[in-house]
């Protein structure tokens, strides 16, 4: 399909952005990308929703288009399936880079509410779904061992910034 092409306004570029990404876990090889498009061709999400385009996101990072990458919300469409990362001929850790970009977006408060809600649940109860008395009754009935309803140590570990 035809993509809309526009000149990139480099006046809006933050040339430090690519360096920031290159310093994250897995981001070191980003500058090796030669834009072959294996990532986008392998991406299952892109088959369904063409707003998500990993090749484009990598290029935007290299061009320093920080605002566009972090505020557009596109990075949250990555399902972290590793199809692109397994196939990249240049060894760019694309899935790891998407995770690093999600971390950066989260630091600028561009994060889906559901993701934050999960974090609060885990901090409070040590798990996304707490086990309560009702669950444990059902577990025992099914021949499964009961589980603790709270894990205090996890709450303690996660409460410190």
């Amino acid at each position, binding site marked *: 399909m035809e993509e809309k092409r526009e000149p990139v306004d480099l006046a809006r570029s933050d040339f430090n952005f690519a360096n920031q990404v290159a310093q994250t*876990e897995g981001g070191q090889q980003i500058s090796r990308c030669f834009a072959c498009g294996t990532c986008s061709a392998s991406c*299952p*999400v892109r*088959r*369904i*929703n063409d707003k*998500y385009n990993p090749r484009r996101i990598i290029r935007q990072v290299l061009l320093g288009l920080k605002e566009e990458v972090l505020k557009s*919300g596109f990075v*949250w*469409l*990555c*399902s*972290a*399936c*590793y*199809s692109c*990362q*397994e196939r990249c001929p240049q060894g760019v850790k694309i*899935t790891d880079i998407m*995770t690093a970009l*999600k*971390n950066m977006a*989260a630091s600028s408060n561009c*994060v*889906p509410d*559901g*993701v*934050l*809600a*999960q*974090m609060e*649940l*885990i901090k409070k109860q*040590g*798990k*996304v*779904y*707490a*086990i309560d008395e*009702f*669950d444990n009754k*059902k*577990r025992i009935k*099914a*021949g*499964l*061992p009961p*589980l*603790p309803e709270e*894990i205090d*140590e*996890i709450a*303690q*570990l*996660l409460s*410190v910034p």
Partner: protein
Amino acid sequence: MKFALFLGCTIPARSRQYEMSARKVADKLGILLEDVPGFGCCGFPLKSVDPEKTTLLAAWNLSLAEEKGLPVMTLCSACSSNLAEENHRLKHDDRLRRRINEKLARVGKEFRGTTEVKHILRVIHQDLGLEKITQAVKIPLTGLKVASHYGCHYLKPSELYDKFDDPENPRSLDQIVAAIGATPVNYERVKQCCGGAVLVSDEATALGLTKDKLDAVKASGAEAMTLVCPFCNVMYDNNQKSIETRFASEYGLPVFYMTQLMGLAMGVSSKDLGMNLNSVKTKELIARFSAEDEDDEKKEKKKVRKDKPGPPLQPLIK
């Protein structure tokens, strides 16, 4: 062969059929499992927002297994990849390990790097081998056409799993399907992601991905689908009905955890395998392989509490 059983968040609360069947199958195959009450979330859901806390949470869980002197066995593929990844990082990054251990010391724990993490199906396929499975089969599932869904984190990142199966041409689940007497069915989009991870940010995209694969499985003539991760199960089993409504399609495709099919073939009763907890009805299909009566389905339905708070990670779409 003994492991610390890591259940994670979703399975013990919302996918008990996986836990029930996994324990039964492990028992049949002589795998010993130890429960560790302090095991919590693996850290995966925090990965996109807080990498440091993700590592800390994984390190907490791994340190408990180390205290027991046991390797970790996971049932969920996301737990599997996150714990394996953090275990690898902590073992190889001295600075990270020191920093995390300072925090763990507050609750009297230490990560020493003495354990390893494996998915249950990897243990069964790689460490036990297909012959052991065949030997344990009592009722071969002859004639049952099954499509295997490998999912993403069971196979990838492959470098962390010592490439036990080829992510571009995976075979392990099909081989297990064949070992229990059923017929593995090939279909288009075998390797495609279930979409579960996107459900929280874009429901339409996530369900579109799930539908895409359900269409391909249906077209292949498979009678059932099998999988090894509770996230995938939410998408294909729990959400199948809503996908049918949303896209005006029809599947009626039973979705089994691999351990449920293995248990069935090993002569475990469908009640003990939690078959009544599957969303898409399995009764007709499994009646071909077991003589027992299934009245429990109705009884269990009455007991399901309706007012439970909705899960943010994987809303069960009504």
